[in-house]
C-alpha cells in the first residue's frame, strides 16, 4: 500500500516537474528585471523523490511592497521592462508575484509607456 502510494506520488511529482518545463520553453528567456523573483525559480521543488507534501514552492512576494516602491510611472522604463515578456506582453501576477493593487498600477503604466513608444506593443519578428 505504502509502496503504491509513494510510487504514485513519485509519478505525479515527475509529471508535475515535467509539465512546467514544457511550459517554460516558450517563455524561458524572459527578460528578468533586477531583483525580481523568477517564476520558474519557485517551481522545481519536488524533483527526484518526495511525495506531494514535500513539494516546496518558494513564496513569491510583491516587489513593490517589499522595496516600498510607491510610484509606478510610465517613464520608468527600466522598472517596467522587468514585468514585460520577451514579446512585449505584460507578465501575469501568478508568475511575478506582484500583488493585485500594484499589478493594476503596473499594467496601466505599461500601457501608457506603450502609447508613447517607450515599450513595444509587440516585439518584432
Amino acid at each position, binding site marked *: 500500500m505504502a509502496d503504491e502510494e509513494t510510487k504514485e506520488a513519485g509519478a505525479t511529482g515527475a509529471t508535475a516537474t515535467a509539465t512546467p518545463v514544457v511550459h517554460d520553453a516558450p517563455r524561458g528567456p524572459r527578460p528578468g528585471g533586477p531583483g525580481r523573483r523568477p517564476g520558474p525559480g519557485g517551481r522545481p521543488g519536488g524533483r527526484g523523490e518526495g511525495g506531494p507534501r514535500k513539494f516546496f514552492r518558494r513564496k513569491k512576494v510583491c516587489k513593490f511592497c517589499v522595496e*516600498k516602491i*510607491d*510610484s509606478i510611472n*510610465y*517613464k520608468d522604463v527600466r522598472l517596467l521592462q522587468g514585468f514585460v515578456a520577451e514579446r512585449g506582453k505584460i507578465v501575469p501576477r501568478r508568475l511575478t508575484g506582484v500583488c493585485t493593487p500594484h499589478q493594476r498600477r503596473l499594467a496601466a503604466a505599461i500601457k*501608457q509607456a*506603450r*502609447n*508613447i*513608444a*517607450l*515599450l*513595444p*506593443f509587440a516585439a518584432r519578428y
Partner: protein
Amino acid sequence: MPQQQRIYEVMFIVRPDLPEEETERVISTVESSATTAGVSVKNAERMGKRRLAYKVRKFHDGLYVLLTVEGPGSAIAELERRLRVTEPVIKYITVRVDEEQKRLAKVKKIRDSKVRQQPKSAEAAAGTEPAPVTA
C-alpha cells in the same frame, strides 16, 4: 463653477532629423501655444534622443520632451489639438498627475508617521538590536 486647475504631464516626441535650432524652435512653439491655450508651463525637460520601441511615421528614433503644465481640461484639449497639427511632433501623450501626487504625498505621510512611531515601540520592546543604539 470655475474650471479646476489641474496638473498634467505632456510628453511628446519630435522627429529626429531636424537641425538643432529647428528642434529648439519646435519646442518653444509648443510651449508658447500652451500658454496661449491657457495652461502655464511649470517645467520643460528635454529627455534627449531615444530609440522608439516601434516605428512611428517611419522614424526609429525620436527626441523626447516632457512638459509639466497646469491648467483646466479644456485648455489641455486645445493644447493637444495644436500638438496634433504640429508637423514635427510625431507622437504625444498627456497624463494627469495631480491625483497621483496627492496619493504619493499621503503614502509618504503615513510612512513618515510610522517611522516616527517605530523608535518608541523599539524602546518599549527593548529589542536586542536597537538597544546598543539607544544605550
